[in-house]
């Protein structure tokens, strides 16, 4: 923070802490302390009476004090053969989270960019952007109900779900969108994209407005077509913003819980890490395993914490 506090405003050493104390106390109690507590709980057994080693059984693989991590990392994988391990990985929470990250991040960024670029050229820009942005205001639970209804699968002749009505009117059999493994995770990701595209659209649109018009005009006069101008000038100019959107989305996806919980409950091979943590703790009542899963989650997020801080320090240096 290069900007210094004006000399005249320095009034005593104690006063600042009165302003800070409530915030620091609350954050230490609700964020900092629990993080360390979570790590120590993850090394204990189910009821916290012993270390996690106590949960090991004769003749079965054991990671000693890291036993809960062995469970968190390998329980969903069927390791009898390489091919079964491969298949089970892609319906495990880790495989699903990879799908979520790759598809949802690319989906929201591409659609958000498309909308940010195109809506700028129509007169009903505000309306169009408002419609795309609206899902950001509603809860994942509400969105889950909306889309569960779209995906509704009827066994009778009448399909009340929009998607199956379209499929059957084209002459195909109705599809159980949410209980067919592999397909169902994709259908959940569609909902995620529906919710979050408005976010990336808004941020990218603001960045696009910051690209100087003269620069684009100059390239056009030099004979570059719109597509080339976009690819070679606009995209590099707004790259920092794209990176911000991507990192924010990755963090959001890793934390995502509600949607899976409401739409499938993590069944039919749709589980994700955040939902597993919930079910280990509040369905199976195993704090050791639940906390181990959440430590895995924070390890995946740590690179982004680091990125956030470095980005912040760079910006402060520029101020």
């Amino acid at each position, binding site marked *: 923070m290069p*900007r210094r*506090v004006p000399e*005249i405003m320095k*009034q005593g050493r104690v*006063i600042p802490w009165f*302003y800070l104390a409530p*915030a620091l106390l*609350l*954050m230490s109690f609700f*964020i900092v302390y*629990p*993080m360390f507590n*979570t790590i120590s709980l993850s090394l204990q057994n189910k009821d916290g009476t012993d270390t996690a080693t106590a949960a090991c059984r004769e003749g079965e693989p054991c990671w000693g004090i890291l036993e809960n991590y062995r469970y968190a990392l390998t329980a969903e994988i069927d390791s009898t053969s390489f091919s079964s391990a491969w298949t089970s990985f892609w319906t495990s929470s880790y495989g699903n989270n990879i799908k979520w990250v790759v598809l949802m991040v690319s989906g929201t960024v591409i*659609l958000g960019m*498309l909308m940010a670029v*195109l809506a700028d050229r129509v007169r009903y820009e505000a*309306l169009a952007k*408002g*419609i795309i*942005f*609206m*899902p950001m*205001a*509603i*809860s994942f*639970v*509400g969105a*889950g*109900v909306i*889309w*569960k*209804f779209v995906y509704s699968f009827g066994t009778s*002749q009448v399909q*009340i779900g*929009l998607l199956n009505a379209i499929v059957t009117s084209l002459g195909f059999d109705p599809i159980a969108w949410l209980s067919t493994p592999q397909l169902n995770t994709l259908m959940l990701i569609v909902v995620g994209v*529906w919710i979050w595209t408005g976010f990336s659209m*808004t*941020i990218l649109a603001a960045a696009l407005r910051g690209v100087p018009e003269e620069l684009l005009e100059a390239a056009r006069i030099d004979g570059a077509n719109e597509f080339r101008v976009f690819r070679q000038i606009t995209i590099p100019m707004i790259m920092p*913003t794209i990176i*911000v*959107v991507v990192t924010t989305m990755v963090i959001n996806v890793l*934390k995502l819980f509600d949607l899976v919980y*409401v739409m499938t*409950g993590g069944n039919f091979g749709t589980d994700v890490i955040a939902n597993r943590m*919930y079910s280990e*703790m509040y369905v199976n009542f195993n*704090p050791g395993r639940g906390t181990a899963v*959440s*430590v895995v*989650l*924070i390890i995946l*997020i740590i690179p*982004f*914490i*680091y990125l956030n*801080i470095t*980005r*912040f*320090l760079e*910006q402060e240096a520029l101020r």
Partner: protein
Amino acid sequence: MNKDKIRNILGKIPLHVIVIGLCLVWLVPTMGLLVTSFRPFQDVNSSGWWTVLSAPVGADDYEQYCASCHGPDGDVMAEADLTDQAVVNKYPRSLQLLAMLRREIDGEPHMKDVPFPEAQAAADIAVYLKRISGINAPPSFTVDNYIDAFVGYRGTGTYREVCAAGEQALDLNCNLTDLLNPRGMGRALVNSLIVTLPATVLPILVAAFAGYAFSWLDFKGRQVMFAILVGLQVVPLQMTLIPISRIYAQLGLNGQFLGVWLFHTGFGLPYAIYLMRNFLGGLPSELFEAAYLDGANHWTAFRRLALPLAMPAIAALAIFQFLWVWNDLLVALVFLGGTNPVLTYQISNMVTSLGSGWQLLTAAAFISMALPIAVFFAFQRFFVRGLLAGSVKG
């Protein structure tokens, strides 16, 4: 000149098709929810919501097989008046209807030269006859789903029907107290408000003090502490739930509103302080220096200068925090559960227990969405500003 204009318009068609197409994809699922929430339950499960404005089930078949003799409204033949409930009640199902159609009337076949309807068509006609005779004629639109959702009615009819007939379930009293039935959305709405308002005001208040300190007060470790705070913004909720719920269990705070208020405050702080500090820190320092030269101390500068100027940031924060708390499921699930159910909890519970009670689910979902959507469209400007301040300017 004119040719160019036409070419320009034609050239823009693909653009409009993509933009409008995307908007429709975004809008149609929500429309389905809204339309369904206003349809009577008989219709919701027998036809898609997009058919709501088309003819009722069986109308086409009636037209094809029956209208030539019985007339378009069914009341042309006095000896077989299809609007008479006594007549229609003899044929409640398609089998009875088909059997009757096969019989002869005065030595002549019932259907004469009209072809015989198939089973599905006959079933639809039976439904249609009930509709025109008034035996079972639900209106196209109804608010019953909302009433049922509010009071938590989960039977096979509607709340208004069973109360009129005096057959209510044990947990319903058929008076205003039903609005607070723990299973209903009315109670959940009240709980959501109780949770959200303090959980929005508290973090903003605490963050205003801290944000002021981080931007205009001098203390040791200012920079390091703020960098840590930036990192804390992305710590997942999941990381802290288990230790806190264990502490709450000892303090007896599980299921209490106080516990949720404090948790949301603690967790909302890193972002709130970050936003406040960026905004307050961006104010010109001459402003503060002038105030100090006039003899102001920190408290006056904070109260009279910083707070009023920070109103746009406070507005953005308020909307953010409000939407976050209102829409949250995980914290409510863990710390409040069924003791004090909020909207999201109630709906997620209904999804599991009702399965396909779509008329109730859609109404309940819309009840939970109405307020955030209204807030969002009313204050869109602030919301977008907060979003941009949080993730772009940094």
